[in-house]
């Protein structure tokens, strides 16, 4: 992620969440989707995305599918059953984190 190191720890959660909403996605599509959703505020760098995807795949959270698109092969990622469960946990963790940070930076709001 180029614009802030603060996002770095949430990369896996962002990937899982996106895959939870879409049946299957490929790497480039993920970077574009995040860019569009955050109106360019958050850019997932290629250098961080693929290592994260491969790690999640190795952990058994993602499964892969390959299809021929145009004149090349495209690798799609989708959530496994464990991946779907883990998404719920990760999102809860993230919500908890946001709440804690809010309490710290802006105590009046809580």
């Amino acid at each position, binding site marked *: 992620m180029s614009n802030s190191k603060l996002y770095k720890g949430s990369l896996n959660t962002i990937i899982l969440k996106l895959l939870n909403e879409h049946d299957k996605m490929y790497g480039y599509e993920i970077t574009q989707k995040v860019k569009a959703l955050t109106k360019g505020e958050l850019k997932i760098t290629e*250098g961080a995305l*693929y290592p994260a995807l*491969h*790690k999640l795949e190795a952990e058994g959270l993602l499964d892969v*599918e*390959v299809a021929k698109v145009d*004149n090349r*092969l495209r*690798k799609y990622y989708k959530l496994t059953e464990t991946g779907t469960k883990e998404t719920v946990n990760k999102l809860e963790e993230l919500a908890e984190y946001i709440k804690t940070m809010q309490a710290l930076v802006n105590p009046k709001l809580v």
Partner: protein
Amino acid sequence: MKLTESQIQDLYAFTRQHFVEHYDLQTELVDHLANDIEKQWQVQPKLTFEDAKNKAFKKFGIFGFMDAIEQKGKAMNKRYMRYMWTELKKWFELPQIITTIALFLLFYIAFSTVYIAPLALFFFGIITVWCTYKGIQLNKQFRRRKEVSNKKWMLEELIFKQAGSTMFVFMSQLFNVYKIPDNYGDNTYFLVLFSLAFTIIALVNYISLEVIPSKAEKLLNETYPEFSL
């Protein structure tokens, strides 16, 4: 505007120039670069292929494909170890457990004698010779496979080329085996552990050099949906 077949091949060569040796990762990165280039052409149709390619590559940061290569390597190692573990567990279930127990007893009885040190060396020698023979054979097989397909898959390389790596860990213990005093055979705890270690080493080597390579096609198809494409 879409990329031509020769431009796709150029991207494959580009990933190889940037140290991506394995076809599985090359394919993924080629598709990514291709998507990025096509997207750039939507905005700037006059941009040359070379310029667009370099722009797309720059987005990977100063380390280029390095992080992706490293993480992919780790992920594949993890997968390989998982296969290894699954196979090893089978040797502690019926019916294979009978072989495991027999093997353990063989080592235990042999090491209970006063000839513990020469016998340990003898078994050590047998395992080493067998592993070396198998390792060479698998390496040859790997080279033949490369001649046919010209593509290198990370998991395939692990299965055929690194299978013998456990043997080297084992080999490094040669000195310790040689040093065993004869009266060690009297210590039951030591005997059980020593025989168990030999049993596990024999099994691990058998699995990595025989069982997993024999299942290579199945494992590769399972890991790479594009393998048979």
